[in-house]
């Protein structure tokens, strides 16, 4: 199981940096950045927080469907390069135009590959080959620069689940998504060996150690959850890292180990 921290309501870059630094200090995998009232430019926030905190992953949840997908792919590629290859692009269907989600996802995937492509869909056509654009008309477009990652990590989110699973992408489920329904979706996807290794995530509200542990164990046993994006203030990172994460890594721990942890609380025995 891997962990991202999502700040509930950051007011500025300092809040995001505190989250990322807390994740780093606790050994969590990274942070998730999304659109907030104070910080609506998701990939701008992602590039800035990556510049301030090394090594952590920076997942950026971006709405897909309304804007031109080539523009989104370009911004993602630059953010990935600027972060040294640490971007996870989490693609959520834009609420106003859910019908454009699948095509937009496909244009983004083409655009992030290092080859010229042509796309003719119902909603998008790349290149457009407009007669008014007369100089050097192209049959295929190569979007540059390529991201730092050989394959930019791309997940669907929320209602983009079936589109993401059909494409063997990862998926970040929402807080209230039903684990049994997720289990059915992933069981269907398992018919294809392509989905082996595809990240199965869900957002989790932080309500304390016991609650998170119970939900993650349930998520794991139902839909094979292997990523948790925990909506929590930075202060929760240490508890997640010491009290939750060790208990959801293996299929089974050695009998007695959890009782040992509960009795000795070794994370409180720092040499201070």
């Amino acid at each position, binding site marked *: 199981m891997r962990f991202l921290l999502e700040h509930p309501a950051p007011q500025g870059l300092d809040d995001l940096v505190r989250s990322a630094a807390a994740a780093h200090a606790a050994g969590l995998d990274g942070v998730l950045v999304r659109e907030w009232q104070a910080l609506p430019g998701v990939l*701008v926030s992602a590039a800035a927080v990556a510049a301030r905190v090394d090594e952590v992953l920076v997942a950026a949840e971006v709405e897909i469907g309304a*804007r*031109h997908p080539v523009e989104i792919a370009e911004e993602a590629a630059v953010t990935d*390069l*600027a972060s040294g290859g640490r971007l996870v692009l989490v693609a959520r269907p834009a609420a106003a135009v859910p019908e454009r989600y699948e095509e937009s996802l496909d244009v983004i995937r083409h655009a992030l590959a290092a080859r010229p492509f042509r796309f003719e869909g119902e909603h998008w056509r790349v290149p457009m080959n407009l007669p008014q654009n007369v*100089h*050097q*008309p192209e049959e295929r477009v190569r979007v540059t*620069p390529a991201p730092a990652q050989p394959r930019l990590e791309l997940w669907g989110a929320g209602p983009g689940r079936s589109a993401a699973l059909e494409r063997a992408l990862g998926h970040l489920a929402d807080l209230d998504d039903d684990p049994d329904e997720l289990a059915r979706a992933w069981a269907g996807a398992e018919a294809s060996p392509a989905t082996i290794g595809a990240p199965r995530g869900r957002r989790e509200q932080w309500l304390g150690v016991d609650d998170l542990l119970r939900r993650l164990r349930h998520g794991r046993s139902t839909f094979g959850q292997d990523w948790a994006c925990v909506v929590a203030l930075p202060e929760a990172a240490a508890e997640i890292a010491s009290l939750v994460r060790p208990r959801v890594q293996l299929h089974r721990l050695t009998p007695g180990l959890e009782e040992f942890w509960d009795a000795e609380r070794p994370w409180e025995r720092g040499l201070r």
Partner: protein
Amino acid sequence: MSVSSRVGVSLWTMQSTAARPGLWRALYRRLGEDAQLAEELGFHAVWLGEHRVWYDGWCPAPLQALAHVAGKTSTIHLGTAMYLVPQHDAVAAARSIATLDHLSGGRVELGTGLGYRDAEFDALGLRRDRRGRLMDAGLDAMEAVWRGEHGDGPPVQRPAPRIWMGGMAAPAIARAADRGYGLLLPQTLSAGEYRRIADDYCARAVRPGAVGALRELWVSDDPKVGARHIERIGLHLTEEAGSWWALKDSFGFAARDQVDRQVARGIGQVAAGPAEQVAEALRAVLAAGVDYLALRPVFEFVEQAELHEQLRRIAEEVVPLLEGAGTS
């Protein structure tokens, strides 16, 4: 106005060319390091360009690259030269710009340009011949976002980040004057041309903003080094003009003689030489009604150590000689 508030450094493009291939992620790391040095030396801003769908990976997303710079620095301003407004979703762009302004503490300098390559417009499904209208509509939409008409909070800079209009054609000057934006003029003009444009702009604008200019320069006491730098710029510009520029009745390398003439004109304005000589050329520009310089020692073929030496020499030897120039 202090010297540091009117001298910025340009132009990071993040290209990995045939002449000087580079690893892109290293180029972005270097951008942060370069900006840290520029900040330490007291320059006002770093300026990034924008182009797209080209073999060398020219940065298509300068706001995200500047967000990296924002995270690596604390006071230097973050400029685009130019952000191609017609090629972006204006509402999303305005939000990204407001976010950059917010998380940098109000350091955004938004140079805006039309863009000119058909291939870039066509990749995005846009008509190049509509770019003027797209620009006006885009600027209107962006200003509406910053006024809060879509429910957003305001940028740190009120009512909006400082906006500069790129270009030198009459519509660009009129647009800048009428909208109350600054002007950011290209590097290829003579002092006389700057004077004429600045006068036109100031005559038309009710409240004129700053008049800026990009200027290419290279500080060296060895004439051979200066000449070599101009030669390298010539090759760089030949590649660009030959690949991209629609010339009279022909396109790019199809009319190599026209390309060469354009390039010769462009490199004719490079100030290369000892600090006194470079400063003299810049003083002439400042005396012609230009009040901001985006000095350009940055090219992809300039090694990082070379660039850092240039930044130091410009800050320590050239900028002091500009004190008082053009402010009469």
